[in-house]
């Protein structure tokens, strides 16, 4: 099963036409299931509580209509009152169909305001996907570096963290998380830098690298080609393209 762990839909309410277009492109690229993370454009880098609810409502409707093609993560802003975030986690994960948590750029990953969310992730046994990027400039709001992800991971070793954007994190980012066995990296985003997927697999192991596209910012087929074309064994490729995510999402039949 090919699982894309990193897609978005646009804010503004659930749009079945847009979802059908997404499914068509998934079919063309041979993607069996995709993980919806958050709505693009919904509240910007520091979304309000209503933006968070609206983004998650889109995910819940998506999972209600297409439970076999999508999975969902609950989008949160750690700057909000923890009571709100924990209630949203209850709504979407504990009592809903979502299987993980998405954190973006509202606060840095090493901020203690993440702690209540991380503790609840451990209780629910769900992964947390966190945006990360190493940049020389053009930082966006409170964008996290891979080293901040590593700090978070050491503080919460019982939570699986998926650090997003291999190309953005680069070799330095891979090395930052190397000694944090609870951190995986996804292949989404950035240019198809030659050799980077192989570098991550060599340093982390194939079971700590997962395929993601960042669609619709990126292209399912093009991002998939980064893994398909990498110098990997069939077993390594199978883990990256869905084996590991099937286990994290607790999909039936996953080992």
């Amino acid at each position, binding site marked *: 099963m090919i699982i894309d762990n990193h897609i978005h839909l646009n804010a503004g309410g659930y749009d079945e036409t847009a979802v059908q277009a997404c499914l068509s492109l998934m079919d063309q690229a041979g993607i069996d299931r995709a993980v919806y993370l958050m709505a693009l454009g919904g509240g910007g880098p520091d979304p309000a509580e209503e933006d968070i609810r609206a983004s998650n409502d889109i995910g819940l409707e998506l999972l209600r209509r297409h439970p076999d093609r999508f999975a969902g993560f609950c989008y949160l802003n750690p700057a909000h009152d923890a009571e709100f975030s924990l209630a949203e986690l209850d709504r979407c994960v504990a009592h809903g169909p979502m299987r993980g948590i998405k954190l973006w750029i509202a606060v840095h990953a090493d901020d203690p305001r993440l702690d209540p969310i991380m503790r609840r992730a451990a209780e629910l046994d769900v992964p947390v996907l966190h945006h990360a990027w190493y*940049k*020389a400039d*053009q930082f966006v709001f409170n964008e996290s570096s891979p080293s901040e992800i590593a700090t978070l991971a050491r503080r919460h070793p019982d939570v699986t963290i998926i650090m997003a954007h291999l190309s953005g994190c*680069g*070799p330095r980012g891979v090395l930052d998380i190397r000694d944090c066995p609870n951190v995986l990296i996804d292949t989404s985003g950035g240019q198809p*830098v*030659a050799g980077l997927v192989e570098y991550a697999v060599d340093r982390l192991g194939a079971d700590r690298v997962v395929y993601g596209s960042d669609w619709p910012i990126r292209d399912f*087929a093009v991002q998939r*080609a*980064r893994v398909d074309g990498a110098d990997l064994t069939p077993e390594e490729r199978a883990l990256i393209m869905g084996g590991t995510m099937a286990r994290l999402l607790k999909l039936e039949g996953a080992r």
Partner: protein
Amino acid sequence: MTHLEDWSAWTGTWPFGLARTLSMRDLLAAMDRHGIARAYVSPLAAVLAEDPMVANAALAEAIPQGDRVRLTPVVNPTLHGWERDFDGIRQRRDVTAVRLLPTWHGWGPESPCAGDLLDRLAGMGCTPVVQLRMMDERSLPPFIRLPAVDAAAISSWVAASPEVTTAVCGAYAAELPAFAEATNAWLDLSFVESRDSRSTAREVLPNGRIVFGSLMPLLDAAVVLKKHGDLR
């Protein structure tokens, strides 16, 4: 595009990131692997050097006989005497394309050296290749501060020489519309990506204006090829 030509192939060493050093032998092997019939090849060392001619001369020595790999010297038109140096290269090897890197070499369409540059290169029998970018600017080291790519200005400059077919490599998807009216511009897809890259390119450019540029060894050529799909 059954006869696949690569308009953005490079040899040598790139100091930023993971890109491995690509020798001429490596390049030829990669061309075989990806089904590339011909490559317009430039030296990576010429990007970072103010004077690219030393790197051009070294590449001229390494290029094999035949038509499969075409020497594509990098020209910095801000340098006094670049034409003399370029003539020296042309006397040693057949040259049918020239690569220009405005942002890396500190000039732009408004610079005096840009004036009739495209027409002059065409007059020498060379296709100008404008390389807009080499990598995601956000990942460049802090000591390198390049001016932002001004796609509209580049497009206007190219369009002002309508008889000169000019290849433009390294545009982002969001920059493609700026080139829609410059009908003498060919664009590569090395940096183009969107929700549906092929459709995005098709919406802006007819097939005849889309060329392949791998940006080997910085990017994975197989991934760039995927963007072309049935445009090939």
